[in-house]
């Protein structure tokens, strides 16, 4: 006998991106229902198309398993006297509605109690589903929900039918004005409409009506069909990340068409042509020997015919015509002349226009560039100067699919005008990395302009009162700072951030604003901490390092890495940390003056002083070479002398002068540790 359950929620078209998570949420609702009600089954599978979310449960039990609830009663000693039930036992049994002789005695926590076993009412699977399906459907999760009828149910799109069956029988359910049945609908465009189904013939029946409910099957067939079309023209389809998934969830059954466009559009930059195909139309582009071909492939929901192909070609041609028009008109104004036009575009209300922003970017880039080796300063300046000019072009200002190509468009116009490849690279790459997955700029110069762009965005936004709070970060400052940190650590740039910040504030004529400086500093330290932890650095080490090294991001990263390395040897690490902690504890935050060498009396203090003096230049040498692991290891040499001092010399001597000199000695020792990080923050597990 067919003991399978079929539940299909028939809807109007649900957005492609919602489908898989919603089907999973639906599945989970049912799994939870079955497990909490003790209904066994062998398998549960999900299916979906834009017009349906479906779950099929195989070999489900007819009813719940027997469930016995045990209720603890009075202690056995009080319930029975001489083997006979007392009043207490009778009262307990009758209050639970069971015969006196069905009471049992069980040991609970070492004592014997009377226990009533109450069998839960067993319900049929059908009944349980009938009662619970409405709330399971209501609780399916979607990013956005809507209302459409008078019961005010919230769902992604209107529910228009429900198939709910156990075997061949309908499970009667009613929701949002829809009553369940055994009837579903086929493909909107090419089927006869209503189809009677059962759990066992569901997939087959739907396929006959041009609905492929299995998303994996639909996607792989779509992919095969696309590749087959591309082979017809000896090309290879280009699958952008996510595009195949999206298209396969925009249709119920995969059909594909191959269309073409005029070769003249191939003179446009590749990304422009691909954007025209992908962004709105969700077409697949086709390449041959990695060159674009004047063809596109589209997944559609109906059997292909000439009319459909022609219609799609027309739409794409119109988009490409737009792009070509922009390309031609934009090129009439040379890119260098566009600089002045930037003054017509405001950035922030109180922060001036994009020309002013560009001028700051030039200054900031120059400032950073001078602190980095092997920089082509003229490429850097030219790149910074032209970095934003494409924001004046029609291609970008149109606000359509090409707007996301900012940077790329500027570099393409630059190339067409014969600007050097290096400058074009700066223009194109100074937006990178756009997110955590994105690649880094491809040259040092581009990386520096990217840093300038990011810090100017951060400083400007803080000045405009647009700092990130909680989950709100409308200008993407956190992302900007993460990219900043990534660039610095990958390119190994080393420069003091506080000076860059001051320079930037000064360029905004806000050099005096120390409050904003401090706010930004805190923001940066927080992001640095997050970045270190994402690289596997412990929280306490990140904190210790940042308190000394936040200002040079590369150093904070390298010191943190060195500390993590040293920490691998737990014993040695403890020695190092505890030695410094002894020193800090006795100082209690005091900052005494300099050591007076002639007042060093005991041999232990002289020894510590000499050791410290001896390693100080070595430490500085390591620091200069950024060899922090070696540097920190060098500190270990102080440990024995520190211990000797504490074990044999009374630091807090009655003689005020001796005491202060000893504290000064310890403070000096502490300062050597602090060349790397604030060891007081380190936690020894």
């Amino acid at each position, binding site marked *: 006998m067919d003991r399978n359950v079929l539940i299909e929620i028939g809807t109007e078209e649900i957005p492609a991106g919602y489908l898989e998570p919603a089907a999973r949420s639906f599945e989970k609702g049912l799994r939870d229902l079955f497990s909490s009600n003790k209904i066994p089954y062998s398998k549960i599978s999900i299916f979906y198309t834009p017009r349906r979310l479906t779950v099929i449960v195989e070999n489900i039990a007819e009813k719940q398993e027997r469930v016995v609830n045990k209720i603890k009663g009075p202690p056995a000693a009080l319930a029975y006297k001489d083997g006979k039930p007392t009043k207490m036992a009778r009262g307990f049994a009758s209050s639970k509605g069971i015969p006196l002789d069905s009471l049992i005695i069980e040991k609970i926590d070492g004592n014997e109690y009377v226990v009533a076993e109450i069998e839960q009412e067993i319900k049929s699977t059908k009944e349980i589903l009938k009662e619970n399906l409405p709330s399971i459907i209501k609780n399916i999760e979607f990013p*956005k929900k809507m*209302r459409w009828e008078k019961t005010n149910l919230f769902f992604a799109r209107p529910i228009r039918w429900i198939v709910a069956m156990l075997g061949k029988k309908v499970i009667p359910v009613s929701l949002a004005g829809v009553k369940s049945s055994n009837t579903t609908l086929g493909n909107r465009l090419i089927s006869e409409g209503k189809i009677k189904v059962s759990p066992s013939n569901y997939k087959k029946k739907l396929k006959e009506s041009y609905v492929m409910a299995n998303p994996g099957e639909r996607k792989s067939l779509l992919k095969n069909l696309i590749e087959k079309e591309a082979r017809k023209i000896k090309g290879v389809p280009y699958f952008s990340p996510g595009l195949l998934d999206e298209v396969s969830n*925009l*249709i119920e059954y995969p059909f594909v068409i191959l269309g073409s466009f005029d070769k003249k559009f191939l003179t446009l930059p590749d990304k422009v042509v691909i954007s025209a195909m992908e962004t709105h139309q969700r077409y697949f582009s086709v390449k041959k020997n990695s060159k674009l071909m004047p063809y596109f492939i589209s997944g559609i929901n109906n059997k292909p015919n000439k*009319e459909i192909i022609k*219609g*799609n070609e027309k739409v794409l041609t*119109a988009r490409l015509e737009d792009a070509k028009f922009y390309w031609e008109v934009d090129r009439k104004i040379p890119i260098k002349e566009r600089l002045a036009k930037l003054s017509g575009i405001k950035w922030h*209300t109180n922060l001036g226009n994009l020309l002013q922003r560009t001028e700051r970017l030039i200054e900031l880039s120059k400032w950073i560039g001078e602190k980095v080796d092997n920089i082509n300063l003229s490429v850097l300046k030219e790149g910074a100067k032209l970095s934003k000019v494409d924001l004046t072009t029609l291609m970008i200002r149109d606000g359509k699919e090409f707007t996301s190509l900012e940077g790329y468009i500027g570099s393409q116009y630059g190339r067409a005008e014969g600007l050097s490849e290096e400058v074009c690279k700066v223009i194109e790459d100074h937006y990178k990395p756009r997110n955590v997955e994105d690649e880094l700029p491809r040259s040092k110069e581009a990386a520096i302009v990217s840093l300038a762009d990011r810090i100017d965005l951060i400083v400007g936004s803080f000045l405009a009162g647009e700092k990130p709070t909680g989950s709100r970060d409308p200008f993407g400052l956190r992302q900007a700072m993460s990219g900043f940190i990534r660039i610095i650590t990958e390119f190994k740039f080393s420069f003091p951030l506080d000076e860059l910040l001051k320079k930037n504030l000064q360029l905004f004529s806000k050099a005096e604003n120390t409050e904003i400086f401090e706010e930004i500093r805190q923001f940066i330290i927080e992001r640095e901490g997050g970045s270190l932890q994402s690289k596997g650095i412990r929280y306490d080490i990140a904190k210790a390092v940042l308190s000394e090294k936040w200002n040079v991001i590369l150093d904070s990263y390298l010191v943190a890495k060195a500390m993590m390395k040293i920490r691998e040897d737990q014993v040695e690490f403890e020695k190092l940390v505890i030695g410094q902690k002894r020193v800090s504890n006795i100082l209690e935050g005091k900052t005494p003056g300099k050591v007076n060498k002639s007042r060093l009396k005991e041999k232990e203090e002289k020894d510590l002083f000499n050791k410290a003096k001896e390693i100080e230049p070595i430490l500085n040498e390591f620091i200069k070479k950024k060899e922090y692991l070696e540097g920190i290891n060098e500190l270990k040499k102080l440990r024995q002398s520190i211990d000797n001092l504490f074990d044999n010399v009374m630091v807090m001597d009655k003689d005020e002068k001796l005491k202060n000199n000893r504290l000064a000695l310890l403070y000096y020792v502490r300062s050597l540790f602090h060349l790397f990080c604030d060891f007081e923050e380190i936690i020894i597990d």
Partner: protein
Amino acid sequence: MQQFQQYQVILKPAPYDVQEQYLESLKYLSLDISEHDIRFVEDDWESPTLGAWGLGWEVWMDGQEITQFTYFQQVGGINLDLISAELTYGLERIAILLSRVNSVFDLPWSPKKTWADLNKEQEYQFCVYNFDEANINSLSKYFEECKEEAKRLINMNLLYPGYDFVIKASHTFNLLDARGALSVEQRNNYILEIRKLANMAAKKWIEMYS
């Protein structure tokens, strides 16, 4: 385009077979849906200035958007009791499909004249105005005037003329926006201000008529 025609149908409350009714309506335009690829592609309509939004789709026919389909959820910042379905047919786009031409400019208006003959010059002039010549200062001032006038009229229960000025403020904002005159922050402020006015008008309507 500066000037285009939309045929708007509002069905309230939304009938359960509204999608089928819509598809049926295409047949009356002599479009045989079994011969085309029709898709309901996610597109949630929103007018941030008017505090109005809904969920729905743009309807594609062979890759071309021909209709905006929206289940209205909120108007003037107020949740709707009764959900309506709004169908907005893009008439030029449908005409392009029906007359099998390549662009709106080629649409035959009469046996001898095309859409371009009638409208191209006007489109061109408005383009120049919208993108280059619209006077930012005077539009900014006019925006303020519309705002004040809307408030004044709505407050004295002259709701309909008041609401007209809300729409005028919204239109003026669109012009400023197209002109590229607004920074991100300014843009948000303008939107918020108009939304406040729209909400004020919606509340007044409830106060006066419900």
